[in-house]
């Protein structure tokens, strides 16, 4: 059976798996980004003020610690991490979502911290001098100015997640992994090659879809004054 024939006969299933894959990636990236941005914001409230040594130490500790942990996690082979969670959360979507979410953390957190700390000191100083409190400064000055960098982090993490999500099918997670893994394990059999090829192409379709979404989101959410 050639690739086109296979696609024609299984198009409903393939399209469903593709949509599922996109949803799976979307949820994990969304949850992961919210967690990472929240951590990033919490540890970046340190005032550029020598009176507040203690708070800065505390924030720096958490920041460096969480970056270290999330970076370390990123080096664990995804195949292994999915399996390691099996005894705790069992087969299925829960394990798939937890593990993929963990993989999304590092890039977004790193970019959030980098974006927030890269905001021009003179801008923050004048904000303080004009009577901006800590929270107002963080939410109305620092966050919008760091947003392009954060958004880029989310975009990169999305692309990485699309390929890691494939592995989730070994714990019976959702998405295109089902198609790809079936093909890979049965390599040499009649439908194996079309399955692998179509699975790969559909991953690219999902990636292209997210790229378009990000281009739109970027356009809509990055303030005009700092748009490049």
């Amino acid at each position, binding site marked *: 059976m050639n690739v086109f024939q296979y696609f024609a006969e299984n198009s409903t299933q393939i399209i469903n798996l593709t949509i599922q894959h996109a949803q799976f990636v979307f949820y994990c990236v969304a949850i992961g980004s919210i967690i990472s941005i929240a951590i990033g914001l919490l540890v970046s409230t340190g005032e550029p*003020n*020598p*009176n507040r*040594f203690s708070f800065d130490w505390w924030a720096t500790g958490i920041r460096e610690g969480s970056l270290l942990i999330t970076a370390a996690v990123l080096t664990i082979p995804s195949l292994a991490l999915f399996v390691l969670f099996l005894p705790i959360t069992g087969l299925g979507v829960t394990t798939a979502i937890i593990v993929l979410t963990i993989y999304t953390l590092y890039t977004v957190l790193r970019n959030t911290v980098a974006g927030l700390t890269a905001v*021009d000191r*003179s*801008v923050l*100083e*004048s*904000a*303080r*001098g*004009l*009577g*901006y*409190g800590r929270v*107002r400064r963080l939410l109305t*000055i620092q966050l*919008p*100015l760091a947003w392009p960098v954060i958004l880029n982090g989310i975009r990169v993490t999305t692309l990485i997640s699309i390929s890691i999500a494939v592995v989730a099918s070994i714990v019976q997670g959702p998405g295109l992994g089902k198609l790809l893994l079936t093909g890979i394990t049965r390599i040499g059999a009649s439908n194996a090659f079309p399955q692998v090829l179509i699975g790969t192409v559909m991953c690219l379709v999902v990636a292209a879809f997210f790229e378009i979404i990000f281009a739109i989101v970027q356009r809509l959410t990055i*303030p*005009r*004054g*700092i748009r490049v």
Partner: protein
Amino acid sequence: MSETENMIVLEAVEKVYPGSTAPAVERLDMTIPKGEIVMLIGPSGCGKTTTLKMVNRLIEPTSGRIILDGEDVTDVNGDLLRRKIGYVIQQGGLFPHFSIADNIGVVPKMLGWDKNKIRERADELLHLVGLEPSTYRDRYPRQLSGGQQQRVGVARALAADPPVMLMDEPFGAIDPITRDRLQDEFLEIQRTVGKTICFVTHDLQEAVKLGDRIAVFATGGRLAQYDDPDTVLTHPADDFVSDFVGGGAAVRRLSLLELSRLELHPVETDVAAVGNQNGTPVAEVDGAGRPVSWRHLPDRDAAGTALVTVPLSGTVYDAVDVMLDGSASLVAVVDDEGLPQGVLHWNDLVAGLKTRERER
């Protein structure tokens, strides 16, 4: 001087940074009268910026009291306090993601002003700092030059009409020509708004030009002298100040003193005044009213003395230069249009130059 005439009073204010034993600012008592410009000057690390930032409590003093317009603000909420004090820093510190109008409106917005009122105020202030509102209000900071950004920075600080402005080397990063223009405009604006201004600079020329008073800080956070510019230049309080002001202070003062700040002798252009006995020189003018030669000079041969002119925007140094160059013992000071505004005599230099109070 009564309490209400002093806008800012620092009482025994001291700052010691954590982890350091030497104070950054040493027990400082300072009084800034309403409507005056006080220039804080000194070498790096002398505590001038720390002092400025203690006034709006961006830096909390270790001890001492800060009294603003009769009210002790040492322990009030810092953010609320800062909304009532204008603040301008070196790079302007405009918010890049806010339009120019929104940048100017930040403090009024925090104070809960009505939207229309904020917009009107932004336009009014853009006018004041010499930027056409219709052209600039919707632009973003990066579309403006450094000098224009700094003007917006000043407009933003003035937005909620605070009685006090703190300026931390606002013109420090600007090219000399633009800086000179901004300084002139700044004085012009101050004439209209009459704020009490605390201004940090490291440029003595700027301090003399803008300041009603100069506070010279010495290394180690000690206030070495606090006087009007002339006194600082001519009577340095100690060796530190005289070193800081530099050698040949008497001659240097000439290049720091602007002619517009001097009490000049009157000059006549009317032919009828020839032969007057009150010592007023009379100049012959061309069709546009510009002086071309002397008709009458008291106690002197008018024909033998060349008429030399110097612009009002120049310094006494320029006037001396012109007089030496033209072998003239007096010089006519002219305004931008070339119209005579007064006369400076060679003898005035020795007799002592009279400065006049700045117009308010």
